[in-house]
């Protein structure tokens, strides 16, 4: 008879850059240089500025419901910049920064928040899927996409984004199990922003970390400071490299904080305190990079102003371009369903709508423009 320990699990945590800007030179990613880190800073400021702009546009009724990324800039830009062109991005709905880091057309990003699926066409062709709103469901699509890459013997990895709340869903666990079972080239990137709408992470799980859930599947895992863009970049790069080289999937937990509400339909003051927000404001990812540049002596007010002015122009261009697109026609919703010939019922129903619109138009002309 025997009773003994048969398995132990241990989890790494990584922080490369402290909040006051001190860098761990051993951990500093070798492939980075100052220009690259400056680019990260630029894109993080761009994300925050565009995020605030879109929030305001929703408030003035110019776009639909918007999910802010504020506070998560390091997680999104850091992981996004680790991607190669042939890698697949499988987002949930709060990952604008990943798309920005990937170099997606920012006008299309604005258009996508205006309920217009035409924005997703080019992104999908460029291996970046449209928003997936049902929580955690996209994890399995990532597993499947990575599976296809493996079957086709392509050296591309997939990265899927989700939040802490998603780890309570069955789809998350099924995706991890499949990915580990078939050793698929996929990176599961959890932005643990502390909150699933009003439910804190402690209300989602008894587990101390999200990352440890990978142990159940014998999968690589790491927890990183999600407000440290260098740590996020490093962990993601390593995981993607392993994936591309056939060494299987990884679960990354990036610990961060959603500084805004869940979406523009939410009011987070109902469920979390100002003190908590103030605590996290002290860990601001953008300020951390500023502190880093100050510490290494490359920061200047001129640079700060240059970034702000450049970003203001970039955001203006994205918003103007994204909102000036002509509205889609009704035909699109019928045409985009089935490939090949449109089924008879859709043809008939499209004709019904067309007749209705013509009638409205004729009535409008008869009454001199009023739709009475």
């Amino acid at each position, binding site marked *: 008879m025997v009773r003994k320990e048969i398995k132990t699990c241990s989890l790494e945590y990584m922080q490369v850059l402290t909040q006051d800007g001190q860098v761990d030179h051993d951990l500093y990613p070798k492939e980075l240089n100052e220009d690259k880190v400056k680019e990260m800073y630029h894109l993080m400021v761009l994300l925050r500025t565009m995020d605030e702009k879109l929030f305001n546009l929703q408030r003035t009724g110019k776009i639909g419901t918007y999910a802010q990324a504020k506070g998560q800039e390091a997680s999104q830009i850091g992981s996004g910049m680790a991607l190669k062109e042939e890698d697949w991005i499988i987002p949930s709905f709060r990952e604008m920064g990943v798309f920005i880091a990937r170099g997606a057309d920012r006008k299309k990003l604005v258009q996508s928040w205006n309920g217009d699926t035409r924005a997703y066409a080019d992104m999908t062709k460029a291996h970046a899927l449209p928003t997936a709103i049902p929580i955690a469901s996209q994890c399995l699509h990532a597993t499947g996409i990575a*599976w296809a890459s493996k079957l086709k013997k392509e050296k591309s990895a997939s990265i899927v984004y989700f939040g802490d709340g998603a780890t309570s869903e069955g789809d998350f666990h099924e995706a991890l199990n499949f990915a580990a079972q078939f050793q698929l080239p996929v990176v599961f990137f959890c932005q643990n922003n502390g909150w699933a709408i009003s439910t804190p992470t402690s209300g989602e799980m008894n587990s101390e970390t999200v990352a440890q859930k990978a142990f159940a599947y014998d999968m690589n895992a790491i927890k990183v400071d999600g407000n440290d863009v260098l740590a996020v970049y490093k962990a993601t790069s390593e995981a993607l490299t392993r994936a591309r080289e056939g060494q299987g999937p990884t679960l990354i937990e990036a610990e961060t904080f959603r500084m805004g509400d869940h979406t523009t339909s939410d009011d987070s003051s109902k469920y979390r305190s100002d003190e908590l927000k103030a605590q996290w404001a002290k860990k601001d990812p953008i300020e951390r990079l500023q502190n880093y540049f100050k510490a290494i002596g490359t920061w200047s007010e001129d640079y700060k102003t240059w970034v702000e002015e450049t970003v203001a122009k970039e955001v203006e261009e994205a918003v103007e371009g994204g909102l000036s697109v002509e509205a889609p026609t009704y035909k699109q919703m019928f045409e985009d369903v089935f490939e090949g010939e449109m089924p008879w019922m859709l043809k008939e129903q499209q004709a019904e709508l067309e007749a209705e619109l013509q009638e409205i138009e004729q009535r409008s002309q008869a009454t001199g423009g009023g739709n009475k």
Partner: protein
Amino acid sequence: MVKMHMVAALNSALRHTMSQDDKVVILGEDVGVDGGVFRVTEGLQEEFGKERVVDTPLAEAGIVGSSIGLAINGMRPVCEMQFSGFSYQALHHVIQHMSRFRQRSNSTASLPMVLRAPCAGGIRALEHHSESPESYYIHAQGIKVVMPSGPKDAKGLLIAAIKDNNPVVFLEPKSIYRSFKEEVPEEAYEIELGKANVVQEGSDVTIVTWGAMTRATKKAVEELGDVSCEIIDLRTLWPFDIDTIVKSVEKTKRAVVVQEATRACSLSSEIVAQIQERCVLKLEAPVKRVTAFDLPFPQFALEKYFLPNTTRIKTKIKEVVDF
């Protein structure tokens, strides 16, 4: 031509498509070594390897969700649900993604995938093994739904489904898996999706049916003897072939819809509504339906009372003809 039952015909269809296109992969529970619990995939793993015929973990959402990803990235997955009664664990992927991914991506990505599932009752199976779920899949929108009525159709329809660039739910009535054989061509052939089959021409009444009920309807019509019945087997349930139905009803002026599924909000509801909208002035009798009762599928001791049978089909045909 070889005489074979439906399981062998489906197996033959899978073998043809896998030989012709290396993007076709099969995944499901027990589909590899075991060849599927009904043996539809028997021998395929031996022939095409473990990479293309995959025994997956026991997780329906995992199977369907992964298949969606495989299809997005250029493969043509054919996934098997062990029983349609278990496919509900994956229904969220069908409704939220499989049905609308093409629309969401502005026609950039179609999903060329087939979800196969044994369906329907009549084999005294355990609970959750006997439902006819076609309406759930039709209601999801954006999906083609197919149900064969015998071996020859099964082979041609499955090949067409796998070659189709749209997602297809392919429902296989278990009761006719091995209950009869037909002459089936050995070579690959396609039966066009969206086209019904006029199984038997007639002039007194049109009977619209599909799946295992096609055979039950033929038997009932034979037993009736003196009524000239036109039997239409839909083959594709969505989008179904309205032209063939209307043409027939305009000729016979009477119609009965026979389905194994429950009645309310079912495909028969839609067919009756369409006949009414298009043929009301031609009709000489109300359009009637033979269906299962609007109940949860009972455990099998009561199955014989629940399922439509030839007696009920004959009764409804007589009611409509004698109206």
